[in-house]
């Protein structure tokens, strides 16, 4: 019902190239997340898929059809924006119905679709209100409802949770996950938050500086990052990167160990160091240790761990979980 192919899509604004030869296959029903730091081109790519921006080269295919010259409204897509982008002069119901009315859908059909969407998102009580009379979370639900009623081949989400507060963000995240299960629709979602990417995606596309760094399932990216960038971007707290030579690892430039794969011991271990700072998160405790041979290392311990600043500790890494990277930042397998 909704697949997407990108064939060496490029985009440049004047002389600056913001997307370099992007190739991507999204299968029907997949939940794909573009993740990357701001300015990496992920939103531009989404806008090219939506048809809001022209590409400078390459092809976009939706369901096998080339859509490069098809206007956004005819591509069979629906989009949810970061700023909700509801029509301020229309009621919730009319906001949801507008796209269908433009497409000359019969009135009864519009009624049933809007009713189904508002039921699914518990918006029944608000149908007569205008966007100004709704809270942020409700507005975003209306925006999602507006996308659902179009029954698109492709759902596009542009950082939909960024404007919501923390509690609401978790709720809406669950809601989007539930929608994906219920609708079995293809969804493409852009975010800079790796937690959203890890929790929602079937497939994550990590982007940096206009290129795709790696594509894979959340656990693939966590367990087998292809390079320094992906290793550093996925996982929180960030992976520790240490100079290989100083620590006596041959044949690599940098080694990487995730904070959760390090052990602390007061007597013996690989690297001796001094506690700089301790963060208590409740379930976890993050300990920052300044080692003699390398820089500061973050160690994530589980449960409540008490360490006084300045106390001397030994940090050792589980050899199974040590990643080695070459000069160019590629992982050595």
């Amino acid at each position: 019902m909704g697949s997407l192919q990108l064939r060496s899509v490029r985009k440049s604004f004047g002389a600056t190239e913001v997307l370099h030869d992007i190739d991507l296959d999204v299968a029907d029903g997949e939940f794909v997340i573009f993740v990357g730091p701001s300015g990496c081109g992920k939103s531009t790519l989404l806008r090219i898929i939506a048809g809001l921006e022209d590409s400078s080269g390459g092809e976009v295919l939706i369901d096998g059809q080339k859509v490069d010259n098809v206007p956004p409204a005819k591509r069979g897509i629906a989009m949810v924006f970061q700023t909700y982008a509801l029509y301020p002069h229309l009621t919730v119901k009319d906001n949801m119905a507008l796209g269908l009315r433009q497409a000359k859908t019969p009135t009864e059909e519009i009624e049933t679709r809007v009713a189904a969407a508002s039921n699914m998102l518990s918006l029944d009580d608000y149908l007569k209100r205008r966007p100004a009379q709704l809270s942020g979370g409700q507005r975003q639900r209306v925006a999602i409802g507006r996308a659902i009623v179009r029954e698109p081949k492709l759902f596009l989400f542009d950082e939909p949770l960024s404007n919501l507060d923390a509690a609401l963000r978790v709720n809406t995240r669950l809601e989007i996950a539930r929608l994906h299960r219920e609708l079995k629709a293809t969804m493409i979602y852009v975010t800079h938050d790796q937690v959203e990417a890890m929790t929602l995606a079937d497939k994550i596309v990590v982007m940096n500086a206009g290129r795709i760094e790696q594509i894979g399932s959340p656990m693939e990216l966590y367990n087998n990052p292809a390079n320094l960038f992906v290793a550093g971007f996925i996982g929180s707290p960030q992976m520790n990167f240490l100079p290989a030579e100083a620590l006596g690892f041959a044949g690599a430039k940098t080694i990487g160990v995730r904070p959760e794969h390090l052990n602390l011991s007061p007597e013996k271990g690989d690297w001796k160091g001094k506690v700089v700072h301790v963060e208590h998160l409740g379930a976890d405790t993050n300990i920052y240790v300044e080692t003699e041979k390398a820089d500061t290392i973050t160690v994530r311990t589980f449960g409540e761990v008490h360490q006084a600043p300045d106390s001397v500790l030994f940090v050792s890494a589980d050899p199974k979980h040590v990643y080695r990277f070459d000069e160019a930042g590629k992982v050595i397998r």
Partner: protein
Amino acid sequence: MSKATHSPARSIAAHAVLLTYTLIALFPVFVIVINSFKSRKAIFSSPLGLPGPETFSLIGYETVMKRGDFPLYFQNSLIVTVVSLFFVLLFGAMAAFALSEYRFKGNTLMGLYLALGIMIPIRLGTVAILQIMVASGLVNTLTALILVYTAQALPLSIFILSEFMRTVSDDLKNAGRIDGLSEYKIFFTLVLPLVRPAMATVAVFTMIPIWNDLWFPLIIAPSEATKTVTLGAQMFIGQFQTDWNGVLSALALAIVPVLVLYLIFSRQLIRGITSGAVK
């Protein structure tokens, strides 16, 4: 306002300054209005005196009603002002939308070109305008005035409106595009309502100079049928003798319509001037 940031002394000082300015600004209007209700002798013997039982006279208004066709002049002025205003707002907003919304070659140059008119007074081109109007047979028509005034007000309106249009959310316009709205529909139903305060600001700034203008009616449309109020009032001013009652009454009457239009726009105007300062 919070008490912490506002001392009574300061607010009294601020009000004193504002009241002084208001008095200075309103004084000429006040003088015109009171003198329009006085006899000719009283105007000269005590120009600042209020009309009393002895000095009160409606002779000026009677002259205005009798001589010349003032209802027609008012109608002409209103037609010219309202129609010019409509075109200025329509074309100004459309041009501003194009300049702020679309990326095309020469966008910046076009914006600069359109803004150039703010710096060059249109009266410099009077001779050329008159030649054009003569050649196209538009002399002594309201159309000529409307065309000139529209051209005169467009640069500033484009300049102001394009700044405001840039503040309209891109996401909103894109949502409209995805829902299949045409660019015209996006412009008229999504963007225009959001820049309404700016439109009101432009309307007021445009309307007053047009209503008050004497130059162009005198030059390109002086015929009896196309006279505007300001031009009509001139017939009471002669080389040797001026009918001050007539002049003052005509001017007092001319204030009324512009005041009404101003009141219509002013509610929006206050929002227009202050918006952008704080979100």
